[in-house]
């Protein structure tokens, strides 16, 4: 007879967190392997192919960094929202809104202004767009007690349709020969890349800076403290005289704004024009949720977890081509890994003891 019992674990060290996370990811990979097996794919080959594709070659690694940029930006913003227990699932929409705002700015002023002026302007516009789209669910939650999971998701769909409406309608470019999409941004409005790659380094630097600043903000500032108190217990926040309205608005503006910045990077750094929603973002807003979670809601760690999941995205693309797997494979990998990360949390917070007794 095997008996298991569990007790709370009080002290959780960084090392234990790291080890638990690694074990969770490994266990997730085992289950993913089983799914691959059932799908008739050699799992060892598939998994090695994923990591070969993303970290195994210079080209792959560059791609991984490219895709890590939006994940770090969005993931860092989400850590702030999640810490305040604001479940912002709408980063996808906020990112698209950022793309829309910055595209408009780029197309309107791009020819008139030099690069050093237009690019900050576009980032500012993108931040504004994302922030506005992030503030809506915050207001809905504060004023009307509307669950933010639902409202942010609905806003994702709404934003995707607005974008489509624009690119098939008023914004359709003359150079697109009738296909949906805006004209290319003027050269001044395009982000330069590290030669030989698609890494738009300005956004990368911005992402790293944001992660660092947010870490400082969460752990060292009054605002971060207030956000954490409100997230832990809104009633205690009220008792402590913390302005719930203001705190939530600011943190959602930041969270949405960072997603907006990611949208700017994708448009101005990669695509150079605004196309269909699915081409602007390949689900970064959702993947970033796992990035934030794996980082244990610490913005600084999103740099690492962002690169890791960017690797899975790139590797996923690689196996799609080499093994003929569908695009949805990446979603299976993501979903499974997230489930195992949550499961791992249990073992982080509870000590399981196994005892054997003879019957």
């Amino acid at each position, binding site marked *: 007879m095997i008996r298991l019992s569990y007790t709370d674990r009080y002290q959780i060290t960084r090392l234990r967190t790291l080890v638990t996370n690694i074990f969770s990811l490994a266990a997730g990979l085992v289950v993913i392997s089983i799914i691959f097996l059932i799908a008739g794919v050699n799992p060892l080959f598939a998994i090695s192919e994923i990591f070969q594709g993303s970290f195994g070659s210079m080209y792959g690694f560059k791609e991984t960094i490219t895709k890590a940029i939006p994940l770090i930006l969005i993931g860092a913003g989400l850590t702030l929202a999640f810490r305040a227990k604001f479940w912002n699932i709408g980063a996808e929409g906020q990112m698209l809104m950022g793309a829309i705002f910055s595209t408009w700015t780029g197309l309107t002023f791009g020819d008139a202004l030099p690069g050093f002026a237009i690019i900050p302007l576009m980032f500012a516009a993108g931040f504004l767009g994302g922030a506005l789209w992030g503030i809506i669910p915050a207001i809905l939650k504060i004023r009307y007690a509307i669950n933010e999971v639902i409202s942010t998701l609905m806003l994702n769909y709404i934003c995707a349709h607005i974008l489509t409406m624009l690119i098939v309608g008023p914004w359709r470019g003359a150079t697109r020969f009738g296909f949906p999409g805006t004209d290319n941004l003027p050269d001044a409005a395009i982000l330069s890349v590290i030669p030989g790659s698609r890494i738009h380094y300005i956004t990368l630097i911005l992402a790293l800076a944001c992660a660092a600043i947010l870490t400082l903000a969460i752990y060292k500032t*009054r605002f971060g403290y207030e956000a954490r108190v409100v997230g832990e*217990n809104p009633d205690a926040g009220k*008792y402590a005289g913390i302005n719930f309205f203001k705190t939530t608005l600011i943190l959602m503006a930041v969270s949405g704004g960072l997603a907006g910045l990611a949208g700017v990077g994708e448009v101005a750094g990669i695509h150079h024009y605004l196309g269909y929603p699915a081409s602007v973002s390949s689900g970064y807003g959702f993947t970033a949720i796992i990035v934030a979670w794996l980082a244990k809601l610490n913005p600084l760690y999103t740099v690492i977890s962002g690169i890791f999941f960017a690797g899975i995205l790139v590797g996923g693309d690689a196996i799609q081509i080499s093994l003929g797997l569908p695009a949805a494979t990446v979603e299976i990998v993501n979903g499974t890994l997230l489930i195992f990360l949550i499961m791992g949390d249990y073992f982080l917070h509870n000590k399981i003891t196994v005892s054997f007794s003879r019957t």
Partner: protein
Amino acid sequence: MWTMWKAASPNNFNPAAVPGLMRMPKSRGGCPATLMKKIQRLEMEGISKSFHGIHANKEINLSVGSGEILGLLGENGAGKTTLMNILYGLYQPDAGQIKINGRPVRITNPMESILFGIGMVHQHFMLIQNHSVIENIALGYKDTPFFFPKIKIREKVASFSRQFNFTIDLNKKIWQLSAGEQQRVEIIKALLNGADLLILDEPTSVLTPKEIEELIIILRQMKADGHCVIFISHKLDEIMNICDRVVVLQKGSIVGSADTDQTDKKTLARMMVGRDVVFNISKEKLTKGQQILRADQIHVTGDMGLPAVKGVSFDLYENEIFGIAGVAGNGQRELAEAITGIRRIDSGKVTINGKDITNLSPRHIYDHGVSHVPEERIRFGIAPGLLLYDNAILKQHHLKKFSRRYFLKYNDVKTHTQGIVDDFKVLTHSIDNQIRNLSGGNIQKLILGREISEQPRLLVASHPTYGLDVGATEFLRHHLLKLRKQGSAVLLFSEDLEEIFELCDRIAVIFAGEFMGIFDSDDERLCEIGLMMAGSKRI
């Protein structure tokens, strides 16, 4: 994974490991109530239980027989509730056994204990607030039919009410009932299930004096009917008044037992605390100073949208403790929240040192020197997942002392926290601990420390000693008197009359949101305070 789930489920016990043990049959038909006779005697032998390596119960032996009311006396945290939860099947003991009528039994979950004839009325009622009385009874009744359960329950309760002279509206929602009525629902639930042994955990803490008398009548009747009753309390008077025999617990062990007619309060108190208790704190005579608080015709709305405070006026001076006595739920919480800015004041005016603070934000009111120990401490007082030192500056984090522009001065915060932990004897292994890991009493000490340490002009304290052990209570009361001596004013809300009389200079009695009168503490008319608390007398 599957075995994991089983481990976490209520029945992680392996009957085969204990040979010769009587095991309750799984099927409903052969329930032990029919297998066994009525409980004549229940014994607990050598019961031990520890949580996180700390003994909650250690080698406990006790027995109770039919027609007997056994008192279980002990301070908060002495292990009384844990012991009874073991008997009720909520926890499994680490060692020891339970015998009914001399036969060992194993109780692994509440349903089994119900079937054995054990009923329990928990201190915090196990009722579903949003459900009706009838649904609550149906949930707990062992023979509730699957389809249309309410019909049968209605019949059952009707016949039962006639027998015990209870009247209760079955269609009312629990939240619409008074505490006394809710307790009655709990007792009905236990008796309907045919409980021979009834456990009552601190049953009087929420009742008015009149309701307590009614409860005693019910208990005496049950005793006459041959039921066993275990009565848990930390109040000596009640134990002496109600029980036949008393067992005293201290730090998880039994430290003594006696028949109540052969002992006295003083002996029991010494057993309970382990030393002599000073029953009267000496209060210095002080002359009151300047006016600090003035409340004028305050009206406040409660959670249910009904008026909770109706035109209350009073003032409060330096060197004064002003007590508000009353049974819970008569507007005390709303009044405290209104003064401290958590709740809106509909009309009326509150001034501190002559400055109008009506409906300012809690932070501004704090800045005027008003501290607050809230009634619902876990709900308002802490952010459970944050660390001790984060919680130690809740409300104060914006002060210059702890923050510089946008940044918090965490070094100073930690020093400050360590100070509170040392001064108020908060038991924790580190100030880096999440506060949720602390026991209720320790959380309370931290909150008190936080609110008192900044030398408030006015301290609004709601039931500050509720749930504290005797030592901590004494310590805290001395602190309140110290504040008074230093020139602060204290507004003390309490249901504990002993506390009110001991500490306060003036006392107001609140009923249904109105003051029934304001008295000096030596006013002779206060002998009728019980009547005033029940709303039947106004002076």
